[in-house]
């Protein structure tokens, strides 16, 4: 069984190489980069589901937070926005802190009978106080050149920093969400996280002062050189010609993708090392014990709630890192693109297909499914062409079918998923 691991990975590598040879190297590396990001996401989910049995269907939300972090870290600050509304924003933040402090203080001092009412009263008062400063401030920010800016911008730091920060942001959100909803049973946790992730997306979509909302933030700076600059750089051109390549712009495309790939591989390697180390240690054993039977684990002295929270936060952080990486690769944050099908269900398919509970499996699942997701498109067209071959070109049915060929993506994804699940139901690389 352990022999399978190098075998599968080797096969995956060969397939990517084949894509490079038969389609093109940019396509191959483009797929590889997203495979790597998908693999990281799958690792995060595997921590939660595979180690601890936490059914998180809110992956999309944490990925999006990572993406938001990429914007907030790397974009240049919008000075007008800060000068127009920075003060009020700061005041509303102060009010928020004040409200929280007041509530905490009140809960400690007020008699238990009154606690709930005092808290509620403070909450309402705080809400109005905060909105008093906050709403006008955001309106002013959003009014600044709405077609191009209309938001606060970011910190203008190198985008690489956004990756760990994206992890931290997602971890923070995960902590909050975990605190509230980890008490729920597995299936309810699912629906709660599903809802919460939708709420996160909604915030990113509607709070334009923060993220430009649906108007999208484009042009997130890159951690790697731009192709257009490369083709004008001497060392690159000389390297290209010394390698005997004819087309410098194609070479630049591949080069940039390779740079990304190296960065991503480094991140994946670190996360993988940590994940494997944790899983193979008594910590991993404890997590599996909790997953199998939480009552018994609690009776054996394991703090189930704290451990669940820990692993949940870790998993969310990993998804956040992946989200930041994805936004970096895309070079933009498009809130409307966060849909559960792509960012939650697809990731789940990766984990299950790869083999939940097994890190190597999850990573492999990330590779295979992303590859299929992308290649389903040309495959679908090819398939329809083959099917309609015997029909005369003018036949209505043939035209109808050809028009439907783009929907073969769904059909093929479904079919492939079902077939693999059928013939390797425990995943390609089972837990043990």
């Amino acid at each position, binding site marked *: 069984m352990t022999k399978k691991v190098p075998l599968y990975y080797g096969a995956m590598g060969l397939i990517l190489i084949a894509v490079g040879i038969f389609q093109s190297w940019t396509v191959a590396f483009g797929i590889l980069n997203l495979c790597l990001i998908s693999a990281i996401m799958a690792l995060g989910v595997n921590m939660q*589901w595979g180690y601890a049995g936490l*059914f998180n269907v809110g992956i999309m939300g944490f990925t999006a937070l990572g993406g938001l972090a990429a914007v907030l870290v790397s974009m240049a600050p919008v000075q007008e926005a800060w000068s127009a509304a920075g003060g009020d924003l700061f005041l509303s933040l102060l009010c928020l802190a004040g409200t929280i402090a007041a509530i905490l203080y009140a809960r400690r001092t007020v008699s238990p009978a009154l606690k709930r009412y005092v808290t509620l009263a403070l909450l309402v008062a705080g809400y109005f106080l905060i909105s008093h400063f906050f709403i006008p401030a955001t309106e002013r920010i959003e009014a600044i050149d709405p077609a191009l800016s209309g938001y606060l911008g970011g910190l203008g730091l190198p985008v690489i920093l956004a990756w760990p920060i994206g992890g931290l942001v997602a971890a923070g959100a995960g902590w909050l969400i975990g605190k*509230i*909803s980890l*008490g*729920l*049973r*597995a*299936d*309810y946790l*699912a*629906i*709660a996280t*599903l*809802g*919460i992730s*939708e*709420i996160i997306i*909604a915030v990113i*979509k*509607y709070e334009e002062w923060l993220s430009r909302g649906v108007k999208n933030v484009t042009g997130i700076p890159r951690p790697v050189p731009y192709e257009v600059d490369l083709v004008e750089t001497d060392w690159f051109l000389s390297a290209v010609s010394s390698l005997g390549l004819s087309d410098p712009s194609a070479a630049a495309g591949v080069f940039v993708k390779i740079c990304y790939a190296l960065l991503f591989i480094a991140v994946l390697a670190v996360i993988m090392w940590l994940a494997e180390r944790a899983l193979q240690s008594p910590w991993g054993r404890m997590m599996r014990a909790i997953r199998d039977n939480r009552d018994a684990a609690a009776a054996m002295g394991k703090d189930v709630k704290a451990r669940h929270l820990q692993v949940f936060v870790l998993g969310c952080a990993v998804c956040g890192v992946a989200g930041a990486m994805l936004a970096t690769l895309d070079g933009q944050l498009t809130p409307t693109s966060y849909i*559960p*099908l792509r960012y939650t*269900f697809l990731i*789940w*398919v990766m984990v*299950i297909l790869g083999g939940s509970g097994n890190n190597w499996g999850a990573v492999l699942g990330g590779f295979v499914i992303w590859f299929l997701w992308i290649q389903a498109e040309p495959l679908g067209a090819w398939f329809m062409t083959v099917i309609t071959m015997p029909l005369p070109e003018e036949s209505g049915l043939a035209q109808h*079918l050809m*028009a*439907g060929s783009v*929907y*073969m*993506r*769904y*059909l*093929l*994804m*479904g*079919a492939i*998923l*079902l077939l693999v*699940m*059928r013939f390797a*139901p425990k995943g390609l690389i089972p837990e043990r």
Partner: protein
Amino acid sequence: MDIANAFALLSNFVIVPAIAYGAQLALGALGVTIIFGILRFANFAHGELMSFGAMAAILATWFLQASGVSIDPLPTALLALPVGILAAIAMALLTDRFVFRFYRRKRSNPIVFAIVSVGVMFLLAGLIRIIIGPDDQSFSDGARFLFTVRDFKKATGLEQGIGVKQTQLITVVVALVVVAALFWFLQKTRWGKAMRAYSDDEDLALLSGINPEKIVTIAWVISAALAAIAGTLYGLDKTYKPFIFLQILLPIFAATILGGIGQPVGAVLGGFIVAFSEVTVTYAFKRFLAYLGPQDWAPEGLVQLLSTDYKFAVSFVILVAVLLVRPTGIIRGKVI
């Protein structure tokens, strides 16, 4: 003070739409809850099954319309509904036979079923788009309204009117009838009890001489029939479009769990709670209050608790709150 107008306003913008929307969610949730409760997995393909049933009904409706059959003032689609139901059942049984049965025999984890159902969802989504295309299809005919806002205003002389659509009424009635029938079936009949027994413990059901395949078949037949009905009624009320069915799956699941998994009554309750909370919390009470307040007075702002931007968040917040207080859902449901 103008209570009549205030009430008419509220009915028209809150009560009637919420009831209709709630009934639609309820019908969907009923189908989901059956599979969730009996076969113990969240069937993500349910939305597409609704779509598939509706599609078959539409094709049949077109055929009927083309051959001049109609049951005016009711929509012809009702006549075509059996075709949709049969198609959905056939599709459900087919997927069960070729997909789910395998995992059932292997006793896979419910999550595996859920993931597999995602596969079926993809498959059906592709199939439906290839057959009928991705476009909007409108197929409703017959009278649209039971009474319109204009009729109402004319009849009562009020400033505000209430409009009720025929499909809204049909949906509500169907939802209520179905929930009663299902409740009776599961609680009182032999096969109903056998289904609950099966959902508890398949092995033991086997030991009691219950044929598991038959239980599964019944569950799929009920769920698929409900899906076709819900899909068709939904399409009649709005329009039919394949893309929408993925979207309404979310509130449907919320309704299912809110009500308590495996509980038909819960599904209906859940549907209405989701619908009402979405509509009321985000409703702008400005004009309502203006009617209630003194003459010529109106509140300054919109008097809206929450922007409609976050309306779906309302149902999820309620869902989470309810689950924290009462983890089994409103009506004690099953936990996988």
